[in-house]
């Protein structure tokens, strides 16, 4: 069975009295260890698809299995648990906690996992930061790091809980081309280490990094 198995995913938003369909029956399959890009212009529904695949939102209709678990029916706390265990998010704007050191930032998902002491969480976070070449930055705050470094901290945070997949949203959108290339190299390494990556982007050069692309337009998969 595929790692991501989404079938007939539909999402309808109610805006006042009008129903606005954002997704109209999308099928997505991603295998374990794949590196997939989801592309499409803004307003195409790719963000909505990302939210559903990332278990932040539930589909109005359709079936979604992630790593063998049926997600379509889950809400609230159960969904939060799945997010914590199976999904590692990387955002365009890094979204690190400004008042925490980077090691505390990376350790944060483990806090919500439960069962780890603070010392244990920080130990794992530091090991991961070392692995991504940020060992000398441990103990610093995000605003003391460059954009590329911050995004790599975000990657470390997404990896710390050993999720089933990384869900990446425009990872180079806020970076210059040099830092962007550096971050993309990091993703390549992470993928080579056996991780599944689903990346949402509208940048064709970035999408070219992936093994294959899924193109979304008007809430449907375009060829």
């Amino acid at each position, binding site marked *: 069975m595929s790692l991501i198995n989404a079938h007939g995913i539909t999402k309808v938003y109610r805006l006042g009295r009008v129903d606005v369909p954002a997704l109209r029956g999308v099928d997505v399959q991603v295998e374990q260890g794949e590196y997939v890009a989801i592309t499409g212009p803004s307003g195409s529904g790719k963000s909505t698809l990302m*939210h559903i695949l*990332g278990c*932040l*939102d539930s589909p109005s209709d359709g079936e979604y299995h992630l790593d063998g678990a049926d997600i379509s029916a889950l809400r*609230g*706390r159960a969904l*939060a*648990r799945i*997010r*914590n*265990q199976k999904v590692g*998010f990387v*955002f*365009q*704007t890094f*979204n690190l*906690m400004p*008042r*925490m050191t980077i090691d505390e930032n990376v350790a*944060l*998902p483990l*806090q*919500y*996992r439960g069962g780890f*002491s*603070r010392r244990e969480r920080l130990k794992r976070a530091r090991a991961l930061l070392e692995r991504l070449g940020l060992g000398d930055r441990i103990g610093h705050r995000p605003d003391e790091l460059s954009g590329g470094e911050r995004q790599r901290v975000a990657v470390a*945070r997404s990896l710390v*809980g050993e999720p089933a997949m990384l869900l990446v949203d425009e990872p180079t959108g806020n970076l210059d081309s040099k830092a962007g290339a550096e971050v993309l190299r990091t993703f390549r390494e992470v993928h080579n280490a056996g991780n599944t990556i689903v990346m949402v982007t509208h940048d064709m050069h970035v999408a070219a990094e992936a093994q294959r692309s899924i193109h979304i337009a008007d809430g449907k998969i375009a060829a």
Partner: protein
Amino acid sequence: MARQIRDWVSEWGELALDALREIWSHKLRSLLTLFGVVFGAASVVSMTSLSAALKTMAYDELSRMGMPHTFELIDRGPRADAERAADLRHVGLSIKDVRDLRNVRGVDAVYARDWSDARLVSTLLDQRVIPVEGVDVGYLSFRNYPIVRGRELVPLDIVNAARVVVIGEELVEPFFGTADPIGRTVTIDGLRFKVVGVVAPVELELVPADFSFLARRMYVPYTWVTQYHRGQQRVDQVFLKVADDADFPSVLESGRMYLKQRHLGADDFEVENSAADVAEDLAMADGILSGWNVVLFTIAGVTLIVGGIGLFSVLLISVRERVREIGIRAALGADDRSIRRLFLAESLTLALLGATVGLLGGTGLIKVTESIAQSFGREFTVPVNMPGAVMAIAFAILVGLLFGWYPASRAAKLDPIEAIREL
């Protein structure tokens, strides 16, 4: 169980640490927020301490001016309306009674006294009619009348019915001028007495009682009054001090029965319960103070609640500011409970911080009050009232929970999608 408690403590410890970091990053805002809670806690602890100190002081003064654990036996003179034979046989209180009453079980001490008679007192400088009382060994200390010079009456004075006298402070100047009166002589009803001590009025700060009459009296051995002056064995009054650990009512009753038996049933004395008077005064002081306490607690409570409202609005602002952060945390797997805990921890940490600062401030206020009182020459110590401090902390926790709950729940109810859209 122990493990669960340890996990719980470490979790909330971490939350509190994060909250402190958050609070520290908004120093001014946190400071302003905390004012209400700080004042509330400070007023709770200072008011309760002050009230407790006043209570101690009032209790102390009432016990000093009254006679706790004491009852009196009072001689009743011959009765014109005596009908029973026993009443005709009345003998009244005698020196022998005084001596034997010491053997009643539970009685600590016995003090005899002869009421004052106006007597002509003179020295070379002056002559006046002064009330002169006959008293027992230790009677003046028993009544807490301060001896400011010399000594009070000692056992030999009583046994010998010695002609020695303790005089009131105000009588020193007219009778002796500026000279030291100790060892000098006064003439009472034509007999020469040696002055051995000077007694001053009881000083009271709170209780509105006037003891200035003490300074205008003289005290001689009661045995002299009884034996040589009145020429009979009669004593006017006996105070019986009951041991602290004895059962007061039963000692009082056995004292009464003892005397009644000795007097063969004659109804020639009265019993007066002085301890009851003290208890009544203490109850009255209690009533006044608890009335005060209600007012003080209302003020303190209102201040704390106002502080809570400040906390409430700042938390609402904090939740709005941190929508983005809430979204990130939700994406990382925080559920509604974790988010609520995050903000409850902030609320509780703020409230506890305020209470701690308030406790320190309240303690400072107490110290200032003490030093002001001392600069006026009053010995007024106010110990910090522990129940008050505990109450201030408990109240702050309550306020933190109460006013933190709604903002925290609002944060917890945020839709992660809405929160993440703010990104």
